[in-house]
């Protein structure tokens, strides 16, 4: 039993004070101490004992008494003990200040402590323990540098002053110089090997901070050996175990942590770690309790911050964003620098995003980014915020940075893709694809959404096959496979029900046959997209089954109804389509898309009033915000304005105005709406402002090219219309043709009609008639086209007849055209008895009458023209005959000469033969040479097949020459007279061939009937006179062409008949020609024989 003895003054006696039984009231002891003038060290011992027993008041009372001025005076010489008392008080107040949470009292304590130390210093400037105390005070106040200088003063005096060493170690630790700190601790330990466990704790911490975990662990374990209840060491070891990140380690760590908690339940650090653990195990109730305790026991900023953070996280994960935000905020407030503890900023940022406070979130995430500039999650969060704030560029920048930092982060690429979708589909697709590859590399299934997005983008870019594959990949295995994989087609005969768009029997059958018809909710969209794609690929049958599959399972999926309706509309099955749209409307009677579609269908059904109502309803359903409905109403008004043939100018104006108003309304809502712009331009054009409308159309056309989803043939047509109206026919034609090819697969008879009309105005009659024929072929039941064709022919003929110069062929074509026109009109007239085709019978009759009149007039012209040509032909023929005769003569001459030569030769041969009979040596040689000659001659005489062949050959040669000579005569023909003639060269030839056999007609008659004929005749004669006609290069070219066509006509010209004349006549003529031809050849042949 420890006790002290207070020496009684002036005696040898001592008062024994049992330290375990100190009086409750310190005054008793004090009285004794004062009365006996006990040495000051006794005072200190007793005070310390009180302190140890937790009787702080008594402790203070004794020390305060011991440091009172009387004592100072009385014990003026005993400096060390006085200093010790003051230092003890200083240390006491330092401690109070350190643990005090309230700022004001804290400062008061520190002031008191400072006062005591100063007092101690005044007694002895050099007392090391005072300096150590001061140093510790300064440390407690956080004034590390000053503390350091205080400790250094001590250490300069005594290198091995343990408290100073420890203090300095602490300073260095706080400065982050762990190695120095470690050295100091080590020295302290060397100097004083029995120092308390705390020193080793310091070593452990330093080593931990230095990353020497094993040594740190040894140090902590040593601490625990010395002091098994040392909470800090336990906690430190536990933390190290937890950090090991292994299940076993974590478990061990938690055991230690729990022991620390049991030993001392108020260690904030331990509490925080426990809370952290329970957060991850999901025991939020425990988390809250632990952190609240931690908060109440500590005033250490970082620790509190950690506690708040734990609490906030707990609420965050529970979805209580408001509370989480508050605690994150509290946590953040406890942190002086984000570098110390950055997590709460991140959490706060997240919560703020959730709460929509993007600006604050932005600043928080930026703080996180300062600490971790390469943190992908933060970058992604920032990117997201910037996008939300509308700064897409910055958003892209961040997300791109994230993908660069971690090029294997599929999620980042996914987000990048999502960001890019609106601005740059190509880049978005790339990002998505990268994400997909990353997912695959990582062995994960790519999310359905990702595949769906890729598919849609590919679809949008027209890569249909890829898109199809992607969608199929997204869908994976399921009932749908049986509908589009060919292998299964036979087992499920889906085809039968492809047309019954509402038929669900197929699926019922499947179910009853034991197959599970299941469509997971997350695949519905993909199925829909796939079906949409199949539509685009024209596999509408399969598409319709897929839509129905969706409806079978999700009967509220309006879009599927609408697509089905669209398919049947494309097949022109309007009634079914309407029915389907009505099904959609049953699901949602106000669905604007369904209403718009219904309106459209009603328009198609010619149900104008109903359509208008429906479209209004659609427009109302969206408060006029749905541009489609508004546009449709605009279109309605436009069509209403131009619908009737008999236009009512007043009504037309109001309708047009209304249409314009509606288009403008859409334009205001969506300034880039192509259709509205198109509509507005149409109204402008309708009012005659072609330049304005042309500008708009051109812009719309430019904008509309590029996406598969924007197909705007209308704007092409409109542009063409404007060109047409401005008289720029060539451009209009080009535009119509391009439009037809690009959008309609050349199948739109209406556009063909526009084209024909343009040709008509451009007076390109043949093109016009051809185009109309194409249109009739495409739309056979459209009788208007026939009527138009009739009119075009009539107009063509009339205009030809009015021409100043024309050939017989032209006139002949005219006649044929008129005959066709008459036929068409009379057919129409006949048909009008049977059908209603919208035009007046009288009108047709008028046309018939006019055409017949023209026909009769044309016949006269035809005769004249033909006569004229006969003459030309005759002259040509005469010339040809002459040439032929000459040729024949020359040939005959040659032949005679040859025969003469041959005879002569033969004679000579005979003579030679006779002579050589005697010379037997050379007989053989001669025989062989004569043999061939003789054979030739005998062939000639016998008339064998070889001769025939030879003759034929000769004939051909002859004919070549004949045609050559013919060309010669042709040269004399006035080529420049009618350049148009070239086209119908064969016909002309034929005429020439037939005509030369006929009688000559008098020139005078010709002149009388056709004054133009005279001119032509004169021209002919002129050129006849000059052997070389004064023709330009063009005419020589044409002549050459003539020559070519001539020489091609080796065979009789029978094959190519004039297209405009009656069959029978033609045949006869060509037959005659052949006969004639043969006759001439025959003559030539006979000539040859002579």
């Amino acid at each position, binding site marked *: 039993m420890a006790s002290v003895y207070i020496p009684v003054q002036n005696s040898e006696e001592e008062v024994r004070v049992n330290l375990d039984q100190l009086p409750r009231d310190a005054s008793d002891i004090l009285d004794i101490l004062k009365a006996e003038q006990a040495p000051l060290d006794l005072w200190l011992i007793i005070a310390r004992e009180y302190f140890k027993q937790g009787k702080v008041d008594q402790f203070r009372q004794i020390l305060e008494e011991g440091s009172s001025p009387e004592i100072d005076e009385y014990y003026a010489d005993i400096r060390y003990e006085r200093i010790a008392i003051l230092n003890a008080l200083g240390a006491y107040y330092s401690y109070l200040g350190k643990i005090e949470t309230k700022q004001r009292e804290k400062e008061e304590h520190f002031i008191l402590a400072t006062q005591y130390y100063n007092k101690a210093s005044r007694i002895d400037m050099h007392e090391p323990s005072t300096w150590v105390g001061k140093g510790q005070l300064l440390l407690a106040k956080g004034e590390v540098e000053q503390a350091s200088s205080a400790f250094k003063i001590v250490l300069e005096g005594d290198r091995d002053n343990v408290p100073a060493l420890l203090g300095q170690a602490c300073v260095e630790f706080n400065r982050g110089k762990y190695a120095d700190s470690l050295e100091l601790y080590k020295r302290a330990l060397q100097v004083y090997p029995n120092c308390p466990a705390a020193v080793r704790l310091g070593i452990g911490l330093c080593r931990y901070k230095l990353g020497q975990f094993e040594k740190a662990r040894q140090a902590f374990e040593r601490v625990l050996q010395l002091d098994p209840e040392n909470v800090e060491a336990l906690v430190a070891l536990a933390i190290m175990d937890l950090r090991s990140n292994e299940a076993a380690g974590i478990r061990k760590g938690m055991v230690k942590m729990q022991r620390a908690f049991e030993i001392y339940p108020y260690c904030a650090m331990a509490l925080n770690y426990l809370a952290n653990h329970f957060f991850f195990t999901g025991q939020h109730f425990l988390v809250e309790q632990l952190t609240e305790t931690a908060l109440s026991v500590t005033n250490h900023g970082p620790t509190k911050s950690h506690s708040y953070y734990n609490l906030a996280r707990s609420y965050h994960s529970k979805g209580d964003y408001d509370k989480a935000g508050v605690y994150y905020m509290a946590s953040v407030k406890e942190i002086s620098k984000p570098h110390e503890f950055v997590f709460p900023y991140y959490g706060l940022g997240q919560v703020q995003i959730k709460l929509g406070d993007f600006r604050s979130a932005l600043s928080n995430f930026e703080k996180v980014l300062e600490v971790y500039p390469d943190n992908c999650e933060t970058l992604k969060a920032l990117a997201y915020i910037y996008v939300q704030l509308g700064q897409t560029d910055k958003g892209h920048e961040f997300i791109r940075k994230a993908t660069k930092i971690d090029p294997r982060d599929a999620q980042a690429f996914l987000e990048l893709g999502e960001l890019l979708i609106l601005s740059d589909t190509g880049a978005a697709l790339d990002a998505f694809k990268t994400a997909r590859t990353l997912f695959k590399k990582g062995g994960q299934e790519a999310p359905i959404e990702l595949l769906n997005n890729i598919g849609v983008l590919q679809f949008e870019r027209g890569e249909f096959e890829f898109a199809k594959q992607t969608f199929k990949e997204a869908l994976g295995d399921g009932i749908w496979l049986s509908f589009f994989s*060919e292998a299964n*087609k036979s087992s499920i005969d889906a*085809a*039968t029900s*492809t*047309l019954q768009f509402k038929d669900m029997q197929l699926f019922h059958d499947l179910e009853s046959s034991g197959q599970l018809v299941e469509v997971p909710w997350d695949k519905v969209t993909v199925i829909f997209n796939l079906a949409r794609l199949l539509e685009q*690929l*024209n*596999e*509408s*049958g*399969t598409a319709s089954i897929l839509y129905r599959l969706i409806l079978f399972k999700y009967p509220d999926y309006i879009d599927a109804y609408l697509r089905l309706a669209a398919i049947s509309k*494309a*097949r*022109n*099955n*309007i009634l079914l389509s309407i029915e389907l749209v009505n099904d959609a409307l049953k699901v949602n009677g106000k669905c604007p898309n369904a209403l718009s579609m219904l309106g459209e269908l009603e328009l198609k059904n*010619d149900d104008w009033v109903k359509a208008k109502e429906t479209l209004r309803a659609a427009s109302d359903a969206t408060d006029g915000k749905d541009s489609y409905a508004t546009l449709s109403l605009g279109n309605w008004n436009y069509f209403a304005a131009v619908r009737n043939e008999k236009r009512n100018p007043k009504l037309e104006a109001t309708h047009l105005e209304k249409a314009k108003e509606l288009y403008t309304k859409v334009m205001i809502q969506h300034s880039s709406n192509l259709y509205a712009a198109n509509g507005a331009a149409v109204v402008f054009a309708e009012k005659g402002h072609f330049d304005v409308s042309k500008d708009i159309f051109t812009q719309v056309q430019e904008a509309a090219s590029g996406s598969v989803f924007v197909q705007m043939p209308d704007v092409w047509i409109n542009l063409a219309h404007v060109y047409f109206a401005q008289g720029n026919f060539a451009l209009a034609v080009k535009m119509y043709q391009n439009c037809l090819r690009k959008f*309609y*697969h*050349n*199948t739109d008879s209406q556009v063909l009609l526009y084209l024909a009309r343009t040709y008509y105005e451009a007076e390109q009659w043949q093109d016009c008639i*051809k185009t109309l*024929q*194409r249109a*009739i*072929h495409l739309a*056979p*039941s*459209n*009788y208007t086209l026939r009527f138009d064709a009739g009119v075009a022919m009539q107009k063509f003929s009339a205009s030809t007849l009015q021409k100043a110069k024309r050939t017989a062929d032209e006139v002949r074509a005219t006649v*044929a055209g008129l*005959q*066709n026109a008459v*036929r*068409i009109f*009379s*057919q129409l007239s*006949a*048909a009008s*008895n*049977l*059908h*209603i*085709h*919208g035009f007046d019978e009288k009108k047709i009759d008028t046309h018939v009458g006019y055409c017949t009149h023209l026909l009769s007039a044309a016949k006269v012209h035809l005769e004249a023209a033909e006569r004229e040509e006969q003459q030309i032909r005759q002259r040509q023929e005469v010339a040809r005959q002459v040439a032929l005769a000459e040729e024949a003569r020359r040939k005959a001459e040659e032949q005679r000469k040859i025969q003469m030569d041959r005879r002569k030769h033969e004679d000579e041969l005979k003579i030679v033969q006779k002579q050589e009979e005697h010379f037997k040596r050379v007989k053989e040689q001669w025989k062989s040479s004569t043999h061939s000659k003789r054979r030739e001659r005998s062939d000639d005489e016998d008339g064998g097949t070889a001769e025939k062949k030879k003759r034929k050959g000769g004939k051909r040669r002859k004919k070549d020459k004949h045609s050559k000579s013919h060309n010669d005569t042709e040269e004399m023909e006035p080529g420049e007279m009618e350049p148009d003639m070239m086209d119908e060269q064969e016909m002309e030839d034929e005429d020439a061939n037939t005509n030369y056999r006929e009688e000559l007609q008098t020139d005078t008659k010709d002149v009388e009937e056709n004054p133009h004929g005279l001119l032509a005749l004169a021209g002919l004669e002129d050129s006849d006179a000059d052997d070389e006609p004064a023709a330009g290069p063009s005419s020589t070219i044409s002549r050459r062409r003539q020559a070519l066509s001539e020489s091609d006509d080796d065979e009789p010209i029978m*094959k*190519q*008949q*004039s*297209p*405009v004349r009656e*069959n*029978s006549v*033609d*045949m006869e003529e060509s037959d005659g020609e052949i006969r004639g031809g043969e006759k001439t050849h025959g003559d030539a042949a006979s000539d040859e024989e002579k």
Partner: protein
Amino acid sequence: MKLAGIKSVDNAHDDSVWAVTWAPATATRPPLLLTGSLDETVRVWKSDELILDRTNTGHCLGVASVAAHPLGSIAASSSLDSFVRVFDVDTNSTIATLEAPPSEVWQMRFDPKGSILAVAGGGSASVNLWDTSTWEIVATLSIPRVDGPKPSDKSGSKKFVLSVAWSPDGKRIACGSMDGTISVFDVQRAKFLHHLEGHFMPVRSLVYSPYDPRLLFSASDDGNVHMYDAEGKALIGTMSGHASWVLCVDVSPDGAAIATGSSDRTVRLWDLNMRASVQTMSNHTDQVWGVAFRPPGGNDVRSGRLASVSDDKSISLYDYS
């Protein structure tokens, strides 16, 4: 099954080629290919090299249809002016000129025995049957008028007859109309039997399977080819795939495949077992108006041939195997 291009003749005609048919082989010559065009001519082509044999003139407007007699010696061509010219294939001598106003003339087909020429009568909503010996009309098969709920249709009767097909036994005629309905007639009794429904856009081409007198294929502007049981009034199957109007259809002589031509400029070959398109030929540059399989027979027993004609003025010949 497979198509392999053999020969293509560009500018085979001066303008769009609208019609094609094979004149079967006769004792003296192999089969010939007949094509009709907007240039108002019918041209005759021989051998795999598609050598132009003859050019027949005589029509005043574009030639919309050509048909060949099963014996191969005579053929008929018709143009938009609704004249039918019947001619001798080998000599081009006119045998008859047919006209039946106010009936127009669209598609024509000789019956399998060759005794009747069926002519789709357009707006007259009827098919005219001409006796091939006398060239007189023997019957007019009219589609009964339906008292439609909407008499206001602008194009008059929608039963505008475009196409016609004979069943292989010669007992039935099917005709396709603008409104997409197909009408089936009993030839012997000259009686309308029933409609086949499913299309709602013009049916421009029809063909019966050569082996199954009930199986009918139809090509329509809705982009689909339908398979019907023509007797049972049932739609058996739908084949979709063309991007635009299907203008023509023909069935292979072995009955295993059909070929279609479309406005989307392609010729497709369809496997009837799979009911799927097995091949797409894209050699034409404009709409394909006609496809025709060469009929078997003659001493020319080589594998099958398919010809296609197009608005791009060209003719293509393929080997079908």
